[in-house]
């Protein structure tokens, strides 16, 4: 229905309503002003300095939030506000803010994937002078591979909160029962054999759990370490895409076949979280993944298999080591206007005393691992982490390109390619791999498509001479 235009014969509507009209306008203006004024309700403290810290919502980071009173007692002039978001949201938000100079954050949590690129772009500050000037901070105590991964031109641009590598966890009790011994440095061929032997689909029991979920931080992380040790690579030193080489094909085929023969059911949609659940419920004999898994599977509150596992190094093929390297670390964006206060906070959260603070106040099993060598010398931590401390440390020490890759590559990173395009490229390639795991396409088809995705990026680097 359309309403007929109605023309009221009022002669002077304006005059009739002028007073009320004025009032309405005033009201509007007040509302708008109030809205804008409310927006600016930043703390008006006199010499109190406020810093905003963006962190990832993982348990160890939440612990830091809960311990902030300790920081405040040491730095009474600094107030800290936290922005806590899950990994994907945090990464997107922090990247957008730092890349465009948004300036909302004084401290950001990033990883070794971003650090070198962002340092080169001038987006984050050089922390080396600050660290050197801070008494007792001791950057030499950081695990060397992590320190290298967070450095640009020899200086640290972010400092590690925790670090991780990858290793293989296996059920020692079941291995004993079946009369199998885990080799000291297992190869993928040996692991494949054992997994197929222990696999028992009738009892919903998998020989091995491996990530199959699409995502550059999901299936690509373990798979890239397999590709590395098989002698494959994403790009060669002349920036040629190398995703359809026989080495990559062999690695991906073995990974997919192993999942088909002895992996968890529904592997194509199963990621880190699903493998945690499966392994802790006693539904897998082995699992190759992040060393950070120990905080879940060795916790009796959430795991049925706590204390029943042993740990072996990442399985290899052509190399001596194969583990990955990852670190959540803290950096100061160059846009920050409170750099001294920001460093006060960063150094509080990453120094030796913080480790002890967590151990004493929250519990030694909750200590952020893999950042400092001295952590592993603390007797209380050594006692709690007896089963996995040494395997973790060994994995971290050997996680470098020289020991884990056959051919040299032009990019940093083990389980990722340290170029900005990788978030997108890695995700698209991972979707192909996931499709192969689901049986929707063959490994050859998946890798052919992956190669096509990688070629334009390779070309842009060849032409740009980057």
């Amino acid at each position, binding site marked *: *229905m359309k309403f007929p235009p109605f023309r009221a014969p009022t002669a002077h509507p304006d005059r009739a309503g002028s007073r009320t009209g004025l009032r309405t306008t005033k009201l509007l203006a007040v*509302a708008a002003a109030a809205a804008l004024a409310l927006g600016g309700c930043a703390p008006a403290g006199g010499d109190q300095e406020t810093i905003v810290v963006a962190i990832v919502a993982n348990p160890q980071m939440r612990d830091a939030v809960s311990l902030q009173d300790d920081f405040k007692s040491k730095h009474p002039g600094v107030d800290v506000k936290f922005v806590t978001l899950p990994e994907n949201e945090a990464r997107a938000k922090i990247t957008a803010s730092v890349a*465009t100079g948004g300036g909302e954050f004084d401290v950001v949590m990033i990883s070794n994937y971003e650090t070198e690129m962002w340092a080169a772009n001038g987006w984050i500050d050089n922390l080396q002078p600050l660290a050197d000037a801070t008494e007792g901070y001791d950057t030499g105590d950081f695990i060397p591979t992590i320190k290298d991964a967070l450095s640009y031109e020899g200086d640290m641009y972010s400092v590690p909160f925790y670090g991780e590598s990858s290793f293989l966890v296996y059920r020692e009790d079941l291995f004993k029962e079946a009369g199998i011994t885990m080799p000291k440095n297992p190869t993928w061929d040996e692991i494949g054999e054992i997994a197929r032997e222990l696999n028992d689909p009738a009892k919903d029991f998998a020989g091995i759990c491996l990530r199959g979920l699409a995502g550059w931080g999901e299936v690509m992380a373990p798979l890239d370490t397999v590709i590395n040790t098989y002698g494959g690579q994403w790009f060669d030193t002349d920036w040629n895409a190398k995703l359809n080489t026989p080495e990559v094909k062999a690695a991906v085929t073995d990974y997919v076949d192993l999942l088909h023969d002895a992996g968890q059911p529904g592997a194509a949609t199963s990621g880190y979280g699903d493998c945690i659940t499966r392994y802790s419920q006693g539904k897998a004999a082995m699992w190759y993944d992040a060393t950070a898994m120990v905080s879940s599977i060795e916790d009796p509150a959430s795991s049925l298999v706590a204390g029943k596992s042993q740990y072996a190094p990442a399985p290899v093929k052509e190399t001596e080591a194969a583990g990955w390297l990852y670190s959540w670390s803290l950096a100061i964006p160059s846009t920050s206007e409170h750099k001294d206060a920001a460093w006060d906070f960063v150094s509080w959260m990453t120094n030796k005393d913080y480790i002890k603070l967590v151990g004493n106040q929250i519990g030694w099993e909750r200590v952020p691992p893999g950042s400092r060598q001295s952590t592993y010398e603390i007797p209380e931590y050594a006692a709690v982490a007896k089963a996995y401390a040494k395997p973790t440390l060994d994995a971290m020490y050997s996680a470098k390109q020289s020991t884990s890759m056959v051919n040299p590559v032009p990019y940093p990173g083990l389980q990722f390619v340290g170029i900005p395009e990788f978030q997108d490229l890695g995700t698209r390639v991972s979707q192909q791999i996931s499709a192969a795991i689901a049986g929707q396409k063959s490994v050859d088809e998946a890798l052919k498509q992956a190669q096509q995705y990688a070629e334009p990026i390779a070309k842009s680097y060849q032409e740009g001479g980057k």
Partner: protein
Amino acid sequence: MTTTTTPAPVTPTTKSDERKSREARRRFTGSSITTVTWLLAFIFFSPVIWLVMTAFKPESLAASNPPVFFFVPTFEQFGAVLAGGAGGYFLNSLIATGVSTVLVILLAVPAAYAVSIRPVKKTQDVLFFFISTKMLPVVAVIMPIYVIAGQLKVLDNIGTLIILYTAMNLPIAVWMMRSFFQEIPAEVLEAASMDGAGLIKTLRTILMPMVTPGLAATALICVIFAWNEFFFALNLTAANAATVPVFLVSQMTSEGLFLAKLSAASVLASLPVVIAGWVAQKQLVRGLSMGAVK
């Protein structure tokens, strides 16, 4: 072989019998429709039931497979959520939602008047222009908005959210209010003007009381949209202006369990909207059906 064909027994049908069977059939159809309705209602409502149930579970039961239906309810998760600084987020949400809704209504009512009761020139074009602002996906404009807000130093500012939410809800409010205004018979307005009522007086004393249900419905829609808005809030706020939906995602983690806590936070987050809807219920039913007659 002989076949005897016995004629089918003719049941004597009287009028009353027929009526009875028709009634029985009707009753059967009626009760089966009721059953289906209940079933559908249950299916639609089950995620909410599940959410509320999970909110009262301890974390270890929330993630269990197969799911647990009988358990001792606990308020532990609600306590944890409230202790986690939910207050600031709720306050921000209240301000952003409240102020933007008031602004929307103040702007939408005159605009709707101008495109229904006293149509301006090219009303159809104006209406199309309003709605066309909703056609561009938000994700396509977030980067320019972010950069502009950054340059103007209004990132992480509630005022920014209020302006965006007002702009976001205004087209919908104008369209809704227009359809409510159109329900008003021309004679009423004629009578008002005959009695010498001016524009503002007509608006205030004649039109507004007649469209109150519509106004309530429009305001509630604006409240719901602004309260639940996530994308702008996530991208444009940080520590000072973050709203409840951002608080909800911060309950999630890629390591460790969070389902029960997230559910408790979600229950708390949806309470204000449920209360607002319940308060406006009577007006709402009338308001929603008013627009539906056409």
